[in-house]
């Protein structure tokens, strides 16, 4: 029975979907790399959560693992308590339908030679959500209405090249909704859309969460977008394939527990001259990002970490442990001092 705290929405009971100690390896020219290493993540019903990290940290792989599109090398993916990859044929397919992915690139997420109607009607016919064309047009119009594309009839006959980036992402979300998913994994779904309309897309996702009680995982490299989207939920920070911090968003952003999160929050430029030019910087010991082929021993961040302690951080890999209420961190020093890294760094 894990307690999942989600901002003002406290969710008790069995988590809806959970990654348990999942590792995923990929073969590359230089050798095998662990894109994701022993990641555990539990998501409750209708939770809005963000996975944040720089490129190569494994957040996209985690998203694909959650959606059941790639198989873990070790560890389990549980959906409603059952191991998904032990399930057979149609049960696996039923699971995969209940977790939908919204992609990053609006220009590649829709088939260029199929109209919006054809894209939306395919899943409706396949899963008997509409009998015949008239019903399919009806349901498709409802879906478009719900994602804010009105009047739907205008959009149904259009081809993707006749839509703007934002409109395409909305069609992509409507397509995901067509199979009544329980979880939506939005992989950088707003990062290729104009800044001026990102918030409306995030609001759409949050509205869907409330209206359909869908759990939404937003994967992003933009901490500001994460803070806005998960303001009543949790943020997980990843670094080189491991979850280094997981907790309520205002804690992770306001008072980061892991030195890497603190470095990120301090480094991000803000759209506010006075604030951003006066921000306290976190000096890292090296700017070099280690390669996944030659991962540093112990805590992967130790070569760059200002709180580095010889003999501790470079020996044992820190586990994700509770530090204060509703937040976990994978840092020996922070856990030992029971004080978030941000404050330790300030004292430094």
């Amino acid at each position: 029975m894990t307690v999942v705290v989600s901002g003002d929405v406290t969710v008790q009971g069995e988590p809806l979907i959970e990654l348990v100690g999942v590792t995923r390896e990929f073969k590359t020219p230089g050798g095998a790399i662990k894109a994701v290493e022993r990641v555990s993540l539990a998501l409750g019903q209708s939770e809005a959560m963000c996975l944040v990290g720089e490129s190569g940290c494994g957040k996209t792989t985690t998203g694909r693992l959650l959606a059941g599109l790639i198989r873990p090398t070790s560890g389990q993916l549980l959906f409603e308590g059952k191991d998904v990859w032990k399930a057979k044929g149609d049960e696996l397919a039923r699971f995969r339908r209940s977790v939908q992915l919204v992609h990053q690139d609006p220009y590649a997420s829709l088939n260029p030679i199929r109209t919006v109607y054809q894209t939306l009607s395919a899943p409706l016919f396949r899963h008997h959500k509409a009998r015949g064309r008239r019903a399919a047009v009806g349901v498709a119009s409802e879906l478009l209405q719900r994602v804010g594309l009105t009047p739907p009839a205008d959009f149904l006959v259009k081809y993707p090249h006749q839509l703007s980036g934002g409109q395409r992402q909305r069609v992509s979300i409507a397509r995901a909704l067509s199979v009544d998913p329980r979880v939506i994994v939005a992989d950088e779904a707003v990062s290729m859309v104009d800044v001026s309309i990102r918030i409306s897309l995030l609001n759409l996702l949050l509205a869907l969460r409330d209206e359909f009680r869908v759990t939404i995982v937003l994967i992003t490299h933009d901490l500001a977008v994460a803070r806005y989207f998960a303001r009543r939920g949790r943020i997980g920070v990843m670094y080189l394939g491991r979850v280094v911090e997981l907790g309520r968003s205002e804690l992770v952003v306001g008072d980061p527990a892991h030195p890497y999160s603190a470095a990120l929050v301090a480094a991000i430029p803000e759209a506010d001259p006075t604030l951003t030019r006066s921000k306290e910087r976190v000096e890292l010991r090296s700017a070099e990002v280690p390669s996944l082929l030659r991962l540093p021993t112990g805590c992967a961040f130790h070569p760059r970490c200002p709180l580095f302690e010889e003999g501790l951080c470079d020996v044992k890999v820190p586990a994700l442990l509770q530090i204060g209420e509703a937040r976990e961190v994978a840092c020996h020093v922070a856990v030992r001092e029971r004080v978030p890294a941000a404050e330790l760094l300030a004292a430094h």
Partner: protein
Amino acid sequence: MPRKGEGATEQLEADQVLSVRGLSIVYATRRGPVQAVRDVSFDLRRGETLAIIGESGSGKTTMAVSLVRLSPRTARITKGHILYRKGDETIDVASLGDSDLREFRWSECAMVFQAALNSFNPVISIWEQFLDTGRAHGMMRTDDVRTRSGELLSLVNLDPGRVLGAYPHELSGGMKQRVLIALSLLLKPPIIILDEPTTALDILTQRAIIDLLRRLREQLGFSMIFISHDLSLAAELADRVITMYAGTVVERANVKDLFYRPRHPYSMGLLRAVPRVTGALGSVASIAGSPPDLIHLPEGCTYNPRCPFVIDECKLREPDLLAVDMPQHDARCIRWKHVAEMIGTDEAAVAEKMAAKA
């Protein structure tokens, strides 16, 4: 103030290094001619950093690329001048001959593209590309180029030995951006133009590039223009900011005025649409509607379909850049006073001001 008539090439004042006057560019496309840039004017002082902010279709890159006359074949400058002050004489870049233009590029004004795009020739080493650039501008002795390149690469915290011998595909995005900056300083140009210098880079690498640019600007004193869709980059580095929409300048202001006291509805909407990480979140909101189709621009002010302050008169004629209630600050909007009423003059983010209002 924009100049209407076609005056003779006018002399720039001593501290003005670049002045763009009424620049217009038309693209020939299959669906007809596109007014990509319409009547853009701005000045750049010595040592000043100017940010040009705009979203997709704003024409910011088309305009910037035309400053060194690198527009693609299908683009034509139809109107306007690009005045550059070299020593005490003023030259119009638009009318430079080929050899003068080639000399002008990189020794007077270096244009650096995005690191993520492949700005380096993939089949020759980084050293050869430094050598090419040096040779093209009269640095004939190879070891002059070698010592100069070594200096510059160390200046941008890179190890010359490893980088010069490498091929472009062997460098990370962050490293490529640093090498591009080092290369841009090879001939100590008075102006450096950077197109989306931090897009597609990770947070910590982005921070390193911003601090690097700030340090180099202090040390070497060059003027800088950077083009980006990322407002926070302007907040970090800019002295003055220009926002562009549908091919034209909609607001010109000093950095604090633009961020805390915007006078054009689009700048205001853009500022309100960008959430912050630290400090209060405020009431964040998107701009309604979707980006303009440059072939069928709306009548009158091009922003009117998305503007909350729109009145009938906005649909008649595109307004000029009007001086507003602050010095060196103008906005292309006849309703700027109403924006001023809502935004006021105190130094607080737009989202916070709107939260206080709601």
